[in-house]
């Protein structure tokens, strides 16, 4: 189950953070997401990747803690998408698929002429769309 998704701007400022748990662990998830940025920074700044993965946006598993796994995705504009999940084994394809949809939703949200770039995404429809994406996550594998 995905417990949290986040969009982080290119200056590492949070643009959108939504948790999908009932428990009051928002602070913890904030911390987890914040810490994961360290890992993203590290991966971006240490380009030991070879040529085929140079343009890869999906960053893979970033930060396995005892309870969560954090997956990351980096767009060309250095906007980061993060997904915190409690699932122990997530297929890469699923994560990729999720991030692709998430990215599309984000692009639509920031294309709104009333959206100020660099500000938090306040769009309600974006939130609703993300929720449906999150809910549909993993359902592809069970079928």
């Amino acid at each position, binding site marked *: 189950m995905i417990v949290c998704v986040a969009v982080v701007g290119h200056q590492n400022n949070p643009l959108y953070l939504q948790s999908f748990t009932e428990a009051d662990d928002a*602070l913890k998830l904030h911390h987890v997401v914040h810490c994961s940025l360290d890992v993203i920074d590290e991966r971006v700044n240490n380009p030991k990747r070879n040529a085929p993965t140079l343009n890869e946006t999906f960053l893979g598993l970033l930060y396995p803690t005892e309870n969560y796994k954090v997956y990351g995705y980096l767009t060309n504009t250095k906007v980061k998408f993060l997904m915190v999940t409690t699932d122990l084994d997530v297929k890469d394809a699923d994560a990729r698929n999720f991030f692709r949809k998430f990215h599309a939703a984000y692009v639509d949200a920031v294309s709104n002429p009333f959206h100020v770039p660099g500000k938090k995404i306040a769009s309600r429809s974006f939130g609703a769309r993300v929720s449906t994406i999150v809910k549909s996550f993993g359902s592809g594998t069970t079928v």
Partner: protein
Amino acid sequence: MDPLRSYLGRLLLEDITPVVMVLTTPLAEAACRRSGLSFVDMLSPFSLFKKIDVPVRTASDQPYRLQMFKIRMVYASDIHKQDHEVADERIKLVVSEANEKTLPDLLADPPQLEDVVNKPEAELCPLWTKRFNRELIRTLSFSDHETFDHPVACLLVVSSKDKEPISKFADLFNTNQLPSLLNEGIMDPQILKHYLVLHDQQDGPQEIAVNILAEMRSTLGLNDCKLLCINSSAQAHGSDADNSWLPYKAHGLHNHEGACFLNTDDLNEIKDFMQDFASNHIIPYMEQKIRVLNQQVATTRKGFRNQIKNLWWRKRDDVPEAANGPMYTFTSIESQIRVLGDYAFMLRDYELALSNYRLLSTDYKLDKAWKRFAGVQEMSGLCYFMLDQSRKDAEYCMENAFSTYLRIGSSGQRNATRCGLWWAEMLTTRGQHREASSVYFRISNEEPSLHSAVLLEQAACCYLLSSPRMLRKYGFHLILAGNSYYLSDQKQHAVRAYRNALFVYKQNPWSYINNHVHYNVGRWYGVLGIFDVAIKHLLEVVACSHQSLTTQSMFLNDFFHFVQSTGKKFDVYKLQLPVFNMSSLRVVHEDHRTYASNADVDVSESIWQELEEEMIPSSSVVRTNWLDTQPKSSPFKNNKASVCVAGEAVKLNVEVKNPLQISVNVSGISLICQLSTTMDASSAEKGTLSAATEEDIATTKPSILTFKSDENNFTVSSLDIVLGGGETKRIQLEVTPKVIGILKLVGIRWTLSDSVVGYQYFEVSTQKKTKKGKRGAHRSLNNILIVIKALPKLTGYIDCLPTKAFTGDLQLLTLNLRNQSEHAVKNVKMKISHPRFVIPGGSSDLDLEFPQCLRKHVQSDSNVVSSKSTKEKFKGFLFAFPQDIKIQGGATFSWPIWFHAATPGNLSLYLSLYYEMESTTDIPYRTLRTHYNVEVLPSLDVSFAVSMCSSRLQEYIVRMDIMNRTLSESFALHQLSCVGTKWAVSTLPSCDSISLVETIPANQSVSCFFKIKDIGTNSCAEAADGSCGSDMVLSPGGSTDVFHISQSPIADFHYQERYHQGKLAKGPSSLLDFILIAKAVAANSSKSEQLLSHHTCQVALSQNPIWWLMEGPRTITHDFSKSCCEANIQLVIHNSSEHNISLGVVTSDGTLEKNQTIPSHESASGPGGWYDVSLENDVKAITSMKGTHPQKQSSESISPFVWCSLSSAQVDLKPNSSAKIPLKVCIFAPGTYNFSNYELHWKVHPSEAGQVDDNGRSGVGQGYPFYVTVLQGAR
């Protein structure tokens, strides 16, 4: 890096060392107590040998030299497994001791990124954490699965005062008192024993001791007995002792209680004893033991045969799995290998140790003795490290040990921690900080909160050291550590940890985390009683708008709690609660421009300037005028500083926002001002000077206390408000200067909930910008004002100007002016932006009763308003009050104002009053600006359609369509008037008796028909009788109720309407204006009569310049048996234009059908002018085009009548003249005929070219229907 020099290396060299078990008699112990020490304490400083330099030969033949060596002296009673609670207490002590040291740090500012980065590596983590780690490791001492804590030797100490010292030695080594390790058979009780006689010099001469020693030597062995003399100084001399002890202080000798009888000789003696003990007894013993054990192991385990045997033996012996694996006594080969390994490790023969550990680990693995297996793995990991070989192997061993410890559950937990600590140190030594931190993090999960806090803090430090630096993880782990500290009641440490993390979250807007950190830091400071810092941190979170309601109230409550705890009012610069929106700041000062209300201030200055353009004297003129009168002390000669008037309030509008969801109580909002009265000739300099100090204020931000309200010079208003959750209010603050000078608006202060005083200074950066050339910025804050002498000031308003009105509403209002000062004002003028809606009345109108004053009978001799003045000023209406009007000080003044809601829509009405001062002042004139917003609702839509009357000359039929657009109101029609004397309006003759529709209810529409007659050209005979005047009363009230439309104000408004409507519709033809007056039907009659006047201007009349009419008998009786009937009719033609017209009448015979087709064709062919063609041809042409059928019809059917006498006639008509053309029709059969099949073709001959446009130049008129009934007459 040499592993021996690394921290872990040194740690291992000091901690994994031979243990010497100490057994003392009470008397020996008492002797040591004299100097305030225990025996072990006395010896332990000398148990570390930095340069022992002894040769060692272990299993191999190659000897090597040991440099540093250490032995651990432990009382036998302490050799047991540690009680967990006691151990934890001891660790807690370490942490809380460090507490006290952190206190001064906490008062300093929290560290910034640079501070942390520039710190040396060792200081990143507090030094006491190392001590903590050692203490944590030490809690595992004397465990039964490891042997390096097992005593290597035993030191038995007897005092020279003891009776029968020899037997005492035997008693000491009594099994009852020995540690359980020896008794339980875990370790070999046959260990090296060393005997010592302790002699206290103060108890007597040394001889007794020497005797005892001799006795001992004879019985216990020559080499194993020693004599030690202490307390040889005669009296206690603390200072000397202090000096001699100084070098050893570092080794944990703290309990120094002043009295010390040890002198330097004693210390040297102890030192020599220890040196001898270590190098001559312990090390040789260990060497020997290693060799013996190695031999044993080699015989039983080494070699192929032994291995096979071992495997077979273990397989057969299927031991049931116990919790700690099988029990191994000291005689078992496994224990012996372990002892061999540990001894070799202690003597630094790591190769030997490692080979034995490896051997052992397979055995333990097969035996499933997991704890022992893990222990051996751990040691082999350390061996790998010390050998600086294969890092991979070392890590593999440590990880293996760690996970094995964890797997066996609670009993291995602490071991796992120790293993983790060593592992982490190992990784740190190799620079693998990230891995180290994750190890720290892993072990922190296994420990109670206090321990995990310290471990997490170390993990955090590792993240900081790792490359690249991982600041976020550093912060996160510090937060976790802080939280754990807090849980274990170590608030100071908690604060320290959180504070160190602050800078991580500062830069990025991770407000959620930032708030949490600040809040907790603040709260804990508060708990610690450091309120000022607590409040400083809480201030950061007080204005958090994004948190939930409960969180916000929690923050706020704690904040107020701490503020109250300080017991005084707290000044806060830039308090964020409530938020003053500085960009909304607006200073309203009145110089020559005064405003009636606050709303008027917000109107753009350009609107006012445009409005006042013609009214106020041009600025250059003004300047010379008052420069002449007041040449010297003009304060605004050079700078552009604003001016305000003493005694008049300077207002400052600002938006206040409450970011929280809780309502807050803000009281005493007032301005901080300074008024300097030292105004002289150099006031301009003063202005710039004060601007400079202003910048200082903004940068230095002095305390609020430096500004005190000076009651003599000015007064400031104070405002109390309650802001609801999320509410934004616009507030107005005032300062009223009382004396002349320079007023500076410095800032705002306010009190939050009666406890916190917030203040904020105005930023003056905008001023700099304007200096650089952006001079057009009106919005820049003028916070320096020049106060000038008091001036007269008018205030005014229009009494009961409606905010909502129906279209057409006509009202008489009053403009009330009041002069508040003592001086009179004169030369009052007024300018109105929309004279279509508002025009000033005359002085006489004031007393009139509305609407009776408008009625005709009141003033029949009309003072018709001269249209020229109003016509000119349609755009803005400048009205000068009579010159003799002066408004004296304190007097009020009223003037009538007419209001007419002309068109529906929202209207902003601007009024500006100009007045001059009676006495000479700094400013010669002032203006009073007011503005009103009026919403005009649609009421009646009136439209007129005029068509020519076909039966009368010079008469028109008017259709008036009225639609009531309102939803609920109904209106009664009162009067319809044509403007001008030329026209007379009357009801249709047939409708005379029918009463007109009186009221039009909501959403209904009505059409009425009227007749209007042009009486301008005719003689005024008809106009004389009242029936056909230009006004027509529609209500049953009679003609007495007629309103005078050619009189002010209706006429004035009509001009305005005409101007505005005329702009929209431009027609060439003659135009007609109507005014419809209606009354609102009030639901209750008590309401005063409401009058609506609707002006419809420039209704287009028919374009034809000629009128024609057929005259003749309508009924003819004729005997058709005799002949055909001849009817004489005449066509009366009137030329109403001002030009000559030539005109032709063309008659045509034929059916109606044909006639109908012709005009359509004619009109389609455009203004053709003359048609001098025979009609027959024309018809043929048309019919041939249309087809054969009509042609056939025309040829076959016989027209029942034919025009005779002429087929076309030509007439020339002079302007305004009439002509009659006789026509004759032959009728062949009785019946009713329509003689409309004729056409009039006319052409205008303009007297001057170009006066008539092309459309009216020529035309064709189709004949009107004229029915004649022909009857068969009697014979």
